[in-house]
Every structure is written in C-alpha cells, then in structure tokens.
C-alpha cells in the first residue's frame, strides 16, 4: 500500500466535511463538519511528514490541533449565546447579526 492512500482518505474526508457545511442547517453539525475538515488536513500534514521524512508536518498538525481546540471553545460559546437570544441553533435564523 502506498502512503498516498492516506492522502486519498483525507481528501475524501475533507470533501465530505465541506458538503456537510454546505448542506446542514444546525450550527453545531456545521461546526462538527468543520472539525472533520480540519482533521482531514491534519491527516494530510502527517502523511506528508512521513513522505518527506521530517517532523515539521507533525509539529504543524499539532499547532492546528491547538488552534482547533481554541476555535471549538469560542465557536460553541458563540452558538450558545445565539441560542440564548434566538432560541434556535439554526444557521438560517441568524441572518441579522444583531439581537
């Protein structure tokens, strides 16, 4: 098996995640799809790290993970705040960015 198979897998996961972002209406599910895409990119970085034979890719994947963790915290807090004011977690209802 060629290590490029991991790249194929991560490409598939990224595409699935992007379709999810486009299709779903629930803000949390959209957010989970974004996480899926981030993970796909991480897998690509790790695979390229292996293909290239150095560890930079893994370090950057680590940074992506940290940033993703921070992003999840803030994003979920925002979703929660929106839900409190609008009583809805649907991205269609948040079309004013106010109130």
């Amino acid at each position: 098996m060629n290590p490029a198979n991991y790249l194929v897998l991560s490409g598939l996961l990224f595409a699935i995640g992007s379709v999810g972002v486009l299709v779903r209406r629930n803000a949390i599910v959209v957010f989970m799809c974004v996480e899926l895409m981030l993970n796909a990119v991480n897998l690509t970085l790790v695979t390229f790290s292996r293909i290239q034979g150095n560890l930079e890719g893994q370090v950057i994947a680590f940074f992506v993970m940290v940033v993703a963790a921070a992003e999840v915290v803030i994003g979920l807090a925002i979703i929660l705040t929106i839900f409190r004011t609008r009583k809805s977690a649907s991205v269609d209802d948040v079309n004013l960015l106010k109130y």
Partner: protein
Amino acid sequence: MDPHLLAAAAPITSTSGGEALTFWIIAPIAVLGALGMVVAKNAVHGALLLVANLFCVAVCYLLNDAPFLGFVQIVVYTGAIMVLFLFVLMLIGVDSTESLVETLRGQRLAATVLGLGFAGLLVFPLGKVIKGQPATGVADVNKAGGGNIHAIARLLFTEYVFAFEAVSALLVIAAVGAMILGHRERAEKPSQKETLRRRVASGAVLTPMPGPGVYASVDSADQRPVLPGETSGLVGGTPTLPGGGDAGPRGGEPDADGEGGTGPSSAPGGGTGPSAVAEDTAPVGAGKGSGL
C-alpha cells in the same frame, strides 16, 4: 534535505502488510463515519459518528509513525472536544430538529454534486502525482531524535518556539473569550433584607393575621363568624377584645367590611394602634389580608 540522508533512508513505496490491512479496515470506517455524520438526522448520533471517525484518523496517525499526535488526537479530540460538543448539544436541546425546507432551492443537490466534484479534484490528481513518489518514512527521524515525542518537543521548543508561545497566548485568549461569551448578567433579584426593608417602607402590616374568631363580639351561632381577613379597622397592634366597643364593622354588618380600607381612616378603631395605614383598596374577602 541532504541527498545523502535521502539516499540512506530507505524509500517507502509500499508499506507493510499489517499497515495495509489496518488501513483498509480503518479507512472505510472513517469515511462511513463522516458520511453518517453529514446525513444523521439526530445531532447526537452525528457527534458519536464523528467520534468514530476521529478515532480512525487517530489510528491513521499511529500508522504514520506519529504516536504523539495519535494519542493527542484521542485525548483532545475524541475526549475533550467531542465531550464539549455533546455538552452544548444537550444544553441546546437534542430535539431541536432542523427544518428540511431548503432556503435556497436545489442547494442540497448542488452541494452534493459540488462535493463529489471536489472529492474527485482532490483525490485523483493528487493520487496520480503522488503515486510513484517514494516516501521517505519518518521512523529514522524519530529514532534520531530519541523517539517521536522527544523529536517533536525539540522542534517545538527550538524552531517553533515563537509559534508555540503565540498559540499559548491564543489559548488563554480563547478561555477568557469563552468566559465572556458564556457569562450572563444575573437578573437583579432583591435580597431578603431588601425585601423586608421595602415591605416595612410600604407600610404594610408585618404581624401575622389573627386567627378566626379573635374579633368575635357575639358568641351566637346565627352570627356570621369573623374570618381571618375580615377585621378591617383592626389593623396591627393587639386586637381589642370584643365588647370594648371598638371592634368595628363586623358580625351582622359585612358590608362595612367591604370598605375595610377606609375603616381605619374614617373611623379610627380605638384599639388599632398607630399602624392603621394599610392601603387596602381590594374588594371584600380578598383584600382583607393586607388590611390586617
């Protein structure tokens, strides 16, 4: 990279059979988990499928000689982040089903077609380009650095130390931001002391209501009994005993009770004491409580 090193490292064009087997088991599960997350009606099911998918990706990291990232993936992603997601899902309400109405017509179909095209675009050219490329493999670098974790730590704290510091600042900012976003101003609720002070200031009667019959002047069965709220004029202070002549409107004249509020002011009940200021404007039975 030094060409000597490249030559020395055995290029990997195909991996071991065990890895291939693991990959072909793990990869379909990952793809199915991702697809399931996208199509799942229930968001909690989606979250659990995403956990499965992330776990598969973690296994892929392990297969790629990245044990540190693999375990960080399991601990941080499938552990912490997905639990956070589930927390928020439960807070928001699991039953918040999304409407199936498309706000943009044909969006779902278009998104699916575009996604398929995108997948093809990502997978086919990439696969073709990479196909013949030999992979160096990161095992030697790991070994040279004294293990994967040591090697990553060395990179992290030397070359990438600035990024590391920036990311740590980012984490602190994120924590503070989440606190600010999640903080809700508590509705101003008066304390017990405040409530008491207001009650005294309003002039309401603070003593409990006397029991039934306290103001009774007649002991006869044909008289209507005095109910707890019906003392009208006798507000506050010690109730005067019947017969004192100041028991006010009562007994055979319930109508006088109807003006309970006016009782104290118009006919100052002798024994009512100084606190006869109850503002009792409510109708008969109901408002009498405050008249007390």
